[in-house]
């Protein structure tokens, strides 16, 4: 075999082996790589535990009519439309925070409630002018808020 083809074969092998190795590493670290759990994931992973020592992040939608704001203290419910988790948060909320919005709350899980230290808004991949959003809502084909 000519040297250049030998080099080509070696490089191809290196790439394939590295690819497989990375794949394995990523699979092993899956739990650390995901940025947040949905309430459903949390149930699957921790079962019926009421307290989780480490900081965790829970992501989902802010349940409609669940937000209560009293002197900067916020209470709301995160839902993935199958399970729900109540969140207590003392701090400033992102501008996009509102009912039906996808959000991620980070904090400690105590007695089935999340005591959040940070609340982030998640933005979806839909971009449209306000008029279009209005028209979609009017025609009842709106799905921006429930998709996440």
């Amino acid at each position, binding site marked *: 075999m000519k040297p250049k083809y030998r*080099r080509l074969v070696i490089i191809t092998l290196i790439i394939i082996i590295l690819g497989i190795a990375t794949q394995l590493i990523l699979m092993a670290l899956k739990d650390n790589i995901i*940025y947040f759990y949905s309430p459903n994931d949390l149930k699957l992973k921790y079962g019926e535990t009421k307290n989780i020592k480490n900081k965790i992040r829970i992501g989902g939608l802010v349940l409609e009519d669940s937000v209560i704001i009293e002197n900067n203290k916020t209470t709301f419910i995160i839902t993935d439309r199958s399970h729900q988790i109540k969140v207590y948060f003392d701090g400033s909320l992102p501008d996009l925070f509102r009912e039906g919005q996808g959000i991620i709350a980070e904090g400690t899980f105590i007695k089935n409630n999340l005591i959040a230290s940070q609340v982030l808004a*998640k933005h979806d*991949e839909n971009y449209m002018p306000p008029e279009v959003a209005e028209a979609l809502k009017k025609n009842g084909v709106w799905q921006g808020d429930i998709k996440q």
Partner: protein
Amino acid sequence: MFDWLANPNRFNRITNKIQPILLLASLITIILGLYFGLYDSPKDYQQGHAVRIMYVHVPSAWLASGLYLLLAISSIFYIVWKHPLADLMSRSTAPIGALFSLLTLATGSLWGKPMWGTWWVWDARLTSMLILFFFYLGYILLSNAFERKIDGSKSAAVLAIVGIINLPIIKFSVDWWHTLHQPSSLLKFDGPTIDGQMLLPLVLMIIGFCSFASYIIILNVKTKLIEKKCEALILKLNLNEISNIR
């Protein structure tokens, strides 16, 4: 075929014709893209005017990953076929790619603060993009770290090839794992989820950024070709002097 491309004179001849077209195309599309992007396009229903950051962020991100692919492919050509021009290509691409990945991270951060409520999070997309930036920096440092230039070229090329693994991770991170970063709006099976009025400036800016980057990289390669010629000439002159003294 690659031998055909690797001839510096031919490279100069072809790129002399392409370069003005690229420059003109990038000027026109970027000016038009900025006009539509900053002025003549609607604000977003949720993000308001912050959506306009996307017109710089998305083209930069595409270029950052696209240029890395170019860097890796030309590194493969350098390692396998040992074409000197492929090395010049990699060396010319790396700083431009680094610049665009930095721009991606910076604009993303500026958008993240008002929208997400944070400048930075360690989710899969943001982290893999940061790693891409470090691969570029690593390439630049490693390629200049050796006394003999050829050692730098070889080891940096290997580094660039290893970094290919990161590209699919960046692309699919938003689909494989839960991330704070939203999934792709443009490359979707069922068409883009961006309104037409916003799509126009975005596409214009993507074309503009790509042609501008190509223009600059070709310019870089040409400069490096001239430098190489100069070095060879100086070496020749020195040798002549030495032989004259003797």
